């Protein structure tokens, strides 16, 4: 109930401060551009195999846009409240930390969902011309959603560590990029190490989704990353109790 109260306030704040519009518009514009150029390329060079290849390519591109935009969406979540001092109001209201954390998380996830839903326009447009295979498109979106949610949880945690929004955004981007590129070093790491790094890689776990396959361990990876970051946030809020400040 209170999660819902917090989430609604956060959503309102997203839309009155124009952050949500800006992030969504950027996402639509950039992924629209990728979609268009990919389509042109496929039509010109590949011919009829638009059905799978185009989606793979477009989802490849969209996840980059997603990873670079999510930190901007999440940076304000706690940092702004700390800067304004309103965190003191939340912490002295009859709210539990978990209400605050999940409320804020939920609000960002809803913006993410809205963002993704708006891009469904592209496959619909395409479906008018070509027949579109729904399966890989749906799994691709599921992948984007799971990955975006993990990014949000990561951003939420880092936002809870600072009162500076820019610092929160940069740190989030840093962590996400590190997770992304963690297995891109075949040259120096041994095969065994690489196998472990693959397991940790943000990008590696995305591949099956765009191939139209839902693997349990991919889902588990993103979900557990999300839960891990949410727990870190809870721990970070809890730390005020022994550090003596918000």
């Amino acid at each position, binding site marked *: 109930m*209170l999660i819902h*109260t*917090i989430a609604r*306030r956060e959503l*309102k*704040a997203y839309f*009155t*401060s124009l952050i949500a519009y800006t992030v969504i518009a950027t996402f639509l514009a950039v992924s629209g551009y990728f979609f268009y150029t990919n389509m042109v390329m496929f039509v010109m060079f590949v011919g009829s195999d638009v059905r799978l290849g185009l989606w793979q390519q477009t989802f490849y591109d969209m996840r980059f846009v997603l990873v670079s935009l999510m930190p901007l969406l999440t940076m304000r979540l706690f940092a702004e409240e700390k800067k*304004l*001092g*309103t*965190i*003191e*109001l*939340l*912490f*002295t*209201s*009859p*709210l*539990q930390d978990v209400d605050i954390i999940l409320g804020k998380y939920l609000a960002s996830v809803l913006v993410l969902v809205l963002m993704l839903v708006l891009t469904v326009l592209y496959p619909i447009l395409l479906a008018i011309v070509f027949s579109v295979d729904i399966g890989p498109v749906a799994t691709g979106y599921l992948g984007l959603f799971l990955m975006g949610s993990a990014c949000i949880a990561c951003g939420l945690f880092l936002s809870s560590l600072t009162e500076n929004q820019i610092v929160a955004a940069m740190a989030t981007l840093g962590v996400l990029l590190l997770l992304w590129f963690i297995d891109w070093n075949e040259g120096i790491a041994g095969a065994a190490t690489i196998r472990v790094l693959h397991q940790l890689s943000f990008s590696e776990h995305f591949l099956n989704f765009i191939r139209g396959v839902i693997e349990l361990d991919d889902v588990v990876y993103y979900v557990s990353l999300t839960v891990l970051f949410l727990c870190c946030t809870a721990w970070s809020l809890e730390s*005020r*109790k022994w550090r*003596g*400040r*918000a």
Partner: protein
Amino acid sequence: MYTIEAEHLTKFYGSARGVVDLSFTVERGEIVGFLGPNGSGKTTTMRMLTCFFPPTSGTARICGHDIVREPLAVRRAIGYLPESVPLYLDMPVRSYLHFFAEVKGVPSRQRRQRVEETMQRCGLEQYAHRLIRKLSKGYRQRVGIAQALLGDPEVLILDEPTIGLDPRQIIEIRNLIKELGSSRTVILSTHILPEVSMTCTRVMIIHEGRLIAIDTPDNLMRRIQQTPRILLRAHGPEHELIRTLAALPNVRSVQRTSTGAAALDYYQIDTEPDGQVMSEIARVVVEAGWQLQELRPLDITLEQIFIQLITDEQTGPRPC
């Protein structure tokens, strides 16, 4: 049962002192003023009572709930105005209050009415739709106070509620506090001395993180004003003037206040408590032809109270 019972509340920020060993009780219907200079620990104490952070040691009970073990129950019982008056600047006043009404668990059917009532009480009706960002400091303060009142809390904790308000608003807020104090318990902090004597039923004086006195304003004044001071401005031969006045009954001592050329003609006279000596001094000065220019009792200042209480403390403990 006491509404607030604090037992050895202590807070250290790392190794820095917040407050040390605070014990006190507050009964229902009291308005208690925390008085203390900057950095004495007023805000720290309030933040512990509101469960913003737990004490390093010691504890307190508010309405029977322990602040360490039952923070949620405590928060339900209190309304809090933090010192910096934090607000969501991008929200209109009404939605802001609606949000907190919801957070404080006001049932949805009563919420609208409660918000409207509170806005009226704090004089905010005409600003209901205004963004908080666009309100003046005084009106932001009112929104903060309205937020504290929303849940109809048993205990109100207000950190410097009248700071930044204009004189008329100060009076309004003080009246509001007094009105609330009749049915609830109020704790407010301030460094304005008259505020305490005007609104509070009891005063707690905190200095360097320690509670050095807790008493009614009247008793406190009496204790401190044991040697009421009078300021005299007159022009006459210094030694003779001092000798003559010092010889008057009920006068303890006369001193020339020696601060710069402008103060040359000022004298400070310490008198016995309850000694009515003003008229006597006036008569003597006038009769001697010393050009009486000013004669008035010196108001005690916050500084004097502290100096007095601290020296009291050092010379021997007094029962609080």
